[in-house]
């Protein structure tokens, strides 16, 4: 019984030791199959079948030529320029707005109005970076990476905590099917409704974190006080120097 956990053990140790995840996962799969006494051909067939069945997960590849080509024509630069014109825009505020839109549209079942390849890489991340650059001037690589990671996180959090509010989403249907088998009464409407407190909490908690991100950026990049033109400052009485 406990031998079946060998694969889990390999995964945890492999990730902690930072081996290549692909190798870790494959070795864990082979090990799990072997300790479950599956014949090698069966394990291989399982690898083949699952890989083919789950090709849909990698369909984002299809849209990379579009994103790549438009980047060549200044997609990121234009996104940065556009956000730079909005005076009130900050990295945090922009990401809060995207979080709100992502969560609301997911709650209406429109989960495909977002995504890392579709929205984050071409638009959200460049705009979030652009907002910081417009405000603080050049930013360090570390700051850029942090802003990008936040952009990806916002997409995930908005999606996850929005989609279960929609009654026809996969998660709700899965739970309905599960409880129906056990003859325990549940309704999609009821499950969706009881998700709302967490959905709202998620928005508030993460928005606060994004406000804190804004503050952190403001601390790291203090805006220099606006310098008066030199001609005027010359005779403006620099007190103690006389």
């Amino acid at each position, binding site marked *: 019984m406990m031998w079946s956990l060998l694969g889990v053990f390999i995964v945890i140790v492999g990730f902690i030791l930072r081996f290549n995840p*692909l190798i870790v996962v494959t070795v864990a799969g082979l090990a799990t199959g072997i300790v479950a006494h599956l014949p090698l051909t069966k394990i291989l067939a399982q690898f083949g079948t699952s890989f083919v069945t*789950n090709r849909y997960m990698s369909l984002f590849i299809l849209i990379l030529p*579009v994103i790549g080509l*438009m980047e060549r024509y200044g997609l990121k630069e234009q996104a940065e320029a556009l956000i730079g014109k909005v005076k009130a825009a900050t990295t945090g505020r922009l990401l809060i707005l995207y979080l709100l839109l992502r969560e609301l549209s997911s709650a209406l079942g429109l989960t495909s109005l977002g995504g890392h390849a579709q929205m984050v890489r071409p638009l959200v991340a460049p705009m979030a970076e652009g907002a910081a650059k417009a405000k603080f001037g050049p930013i360090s690589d570390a700051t850029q990476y942090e802003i990008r990671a936040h952009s990806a*996180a916002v997409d995930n959090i908005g999606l996850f905590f929005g989609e279960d509010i929609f009654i026809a989403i996969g998660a709700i249907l899965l739970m309905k099917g599960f409880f129906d088998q056990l003859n325990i009464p549940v309704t999609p409407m009821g499950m969706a409704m009881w*998700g709302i407190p967490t959905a709202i909490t998620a928005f508030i908690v993460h928005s606060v974190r994004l406000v804190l991100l804004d503050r952190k950026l403001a601390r790291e990049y203090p805006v220099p006080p606006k310098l008066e033109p030199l001609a005027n400052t010359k005779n403006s009485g620099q007190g103690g120097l006389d």
Partner: protein
Amino acid sequence: MILSLNMIYILTGIILVVVSFLSFRDRQNPRRWTTGSFWGLYAVTFLFGQQISPVYMGGIVLVIVALAGFGGVRLGNYDERPRTERLKRASKLRNWVFLPTLLIPTITVIGTIVLNKTKIGGIPLLDPKNVTLVSLGVAGLIALIMALIITKDTPQRAINEGRRLMDAIGWAAILPQMLATLGALFAAGGVGLAISKIVTSVIPVHNTFAVVVAYCVGMALFTMIMGNAFAAFPVMTAGIAVPLLIQMHGASANTIAALGMFSGYCGTLMTPMAANFNIVPAALLDLPDKYQVIKVQLPTALILLTANIFFMYFLALGGH
């Protein structure tokens, strides 16, 4: 159906074949043969997934893993434009540059909610079981055509720019599919049962709050191991929530279900096993630390998991 998911896979496969050839020809890539073979074999899984028998496909998958896992996929030369040139182009195209990108989600949504039941001559237009995925594929194709019109550039250039992004993603591209495989092997090997047995053996069943904590944290942990809350839900709910919360304490199943699944999602935010949400985006955004998205999500996930526990205790069980 007129447009099937398999057609979208074939389209993806064709792009990957071109990427593979471009990689073979890229002399500035120090590992151009392994890089090209990786994308080429990956193309085979898209083009002939239905035809090749699962055992042979398993063999191909292991070769793909070896190529990518041992550093065989490297960056090459993509004839990138310098920033000044891109700025010049941006000021020329201005906001038109956004159009192809914005078309992708727009067309996907139109396909999903407007054309999902459209029939032409009695045959459904879009594969009814995979409306969203087929819509995404069609959206990608239309957006590509629009991008070529706007930029007046060539399809080959577009795929070469796509190759720039694909090589940057590298091994992470196939990690989600490998994790799904691992999930299937875990299920076949009885891993779920073993874990739910461990969890149920350590919780004090009469302390309702402790049971709620065990269920929510269990959902999060199990999701972190499996990389998927859907895999964790039936096991943990059947093992803990149904006998100890719903049947023993009369908790509302609707509330338990909603909050249990959300606890699982908190786990999804914290695990590299949910690679398509956490690792692929890190690669896609050129982050040197592939765990940075997870690190950013960690505080929110932990706070929400705690909130879920209290919501469940008070909303589903009335606080006793």
